């Protein structure tokens, strides 16, 4: 048996077994409950062909990317600033930790009644879900910078800007990337939550309408799509994290 077959065979066999199980369970239960894989794929193809899937996917992607980018643009500099100015960091640390552990979904009803429907409140939800892991991990990283490093830089008459660029940023980036990986996962939850509970758009809307019509096939098809997106993004996050982890001493 060639090496690649040995390596990949178990994966494909288990995928096949899972697909077979889904098909069998689907055929032997009522259609409102579970739909076989084959029918799910047919529904998926129909949704894709009608253009609905593509449109809604782009809608969701725009929401996710906007919220995530703002979270990154705010979380990283804020984390570094907190790291540099000790008094602010010590002061705000417990609050950041609290917000990191708070289920942000609980804020959605407030956002709804304050900002109503539209794109901005949904971006805010994704932002809130994603920003705290980035902030928390950046602060955590910056806190672990050895004071000696900064002292050495100082004794070489390093300016503030050089200090940030040459010491703070390279040192904390791997930690930030751990936060980025977590933020990807949380941001995705935030995206779907925003689409469910605020104005219904994107893949969230597609799944809601399908479940209201008891269209189990479409529900499963979109769960499959979002699941695969989740897996792909998680892989991406892991990849980014590993890439930067090599810097870690």
């Amino acid at each position, binding site marked *: 048996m060639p090496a690649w077959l040995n390596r990949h065979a178990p994966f494909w066999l288990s995928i096949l077994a899972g697909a077979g199980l889904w098909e069998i369970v689907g055929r032997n239960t009522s259609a409102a409950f579970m739909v076989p894989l084959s029918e799910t794929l047919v529904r998926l193809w129909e949704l894709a062909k009608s253009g609905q899937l593509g449109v809604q996917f782009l809608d969701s992607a725009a929401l996710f990317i906007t919220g995530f980018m703002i979270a990154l643009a705010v979380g990283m500099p804020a984390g570094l600033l907190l790291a540099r100015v000790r008094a*602010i960091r010590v002061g705000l640390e417990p*609050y950041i930790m609290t917000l990191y552990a708070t*289920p942000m979904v*609980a804020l959605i*009803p*407030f956002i709804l009644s304050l900002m109503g429907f539209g794109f901005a409140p949904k971006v805010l939800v994704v932002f809130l879900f994603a920003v705290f892991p980035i902030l928390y991990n950046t602060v955590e990283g910056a806190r672990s910078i050895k004071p000696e490093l900064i*002292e050495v830089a100082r004794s070489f008459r390093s300016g503030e800007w050089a200090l940030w660029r040459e010491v703070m940023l390279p040192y904390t980036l791997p930690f930030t990337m751990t936060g980025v*990986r977590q933020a990807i996962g949380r941001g995705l939850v935030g995206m779907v939550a925003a689409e469910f509970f605020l104005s219904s758009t994107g893949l969230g809307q597609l799944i809601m309408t399908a479940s209201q019509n008891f269209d189990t096939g479409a529900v499963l098809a979109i769960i499959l799509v979002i699941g695969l997106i989740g897996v792909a993004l*998680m892989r991406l996050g892991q990849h980014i994290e590993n890439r930067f982890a090599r810097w870690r001493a």
Partner: protein
Amino acid sequence: MSYPAIRAPASVRLAQRANRPADRIAGTAIPRLLAGLVVILVWELIVRGFAPAYVAKPSGVIAAIPKVIVDPGFLSATAITLAAVAEGLVIAVMFGTVIGLTIGRSIVADRVLRHYINGFYAVPMIVVLPLLSLWFGYTGAARLATIVFAAIFAIIINVADGARSVPREYLEVARSFRSGRARMLVEIVLPAAIPYFLAGLRLASGRALIGAVVAEFFTAIGGLGYYILYNSRTYHHNEAFVGVLLLAAFGVGFELAVNAATRRFLPWYRRDEKAE
């Protein structure tokens, strides 16, 4: 005879200073208190200046606390949600530990199941809600299923990691004393996996809490999440925010409890969080 004073480097001076109790309080408690006051003040002023009267503000929330915490509706909502989270966590822990140990110790199980576990873990849990509400109806069972789905994969992944990390020598020693497979699993692998299990439990409890709230939003069944939803819809934002504070307290409480348990019972163990 006296030596000229040599100033210690800043890092050492800082470390020394941080160790004196009086300075420790002055160094952390005061900035924390100040920062908290500033946040509260800014929030209060912004709401008073720009937002409609029903929006939650610190003074309103504080005024609402005594009323809310004796409100039987609030108490029963809290009890319902906490009971559901606890029940879901127990189920997730039971099945998650068994599955995790199996995956960690059996190459076949690992190869067959790994992709599914990692895959389900990466699925945003909220997305299965419509399906679960089709299956279980708009009932507490749908919430319980959501909690279990949210929690179980974090436990499986971490327990499997722990079971995999058992030093080979321990198992070899056990085997040379003719220990049975089951006994080895219970007496060696399980204890070795406990720190990993605790890390998984910390993640799982946070996710379970989110799962419960989301399920209550979605299915509108009674509980703390629904309490928040209902009160914010009826413009009782201050009351609703007390619910959010309680959720935050639970979130932090779980985190601190697991960390404290790790430090207390497994003082040798330090580990970064594996996955989220």
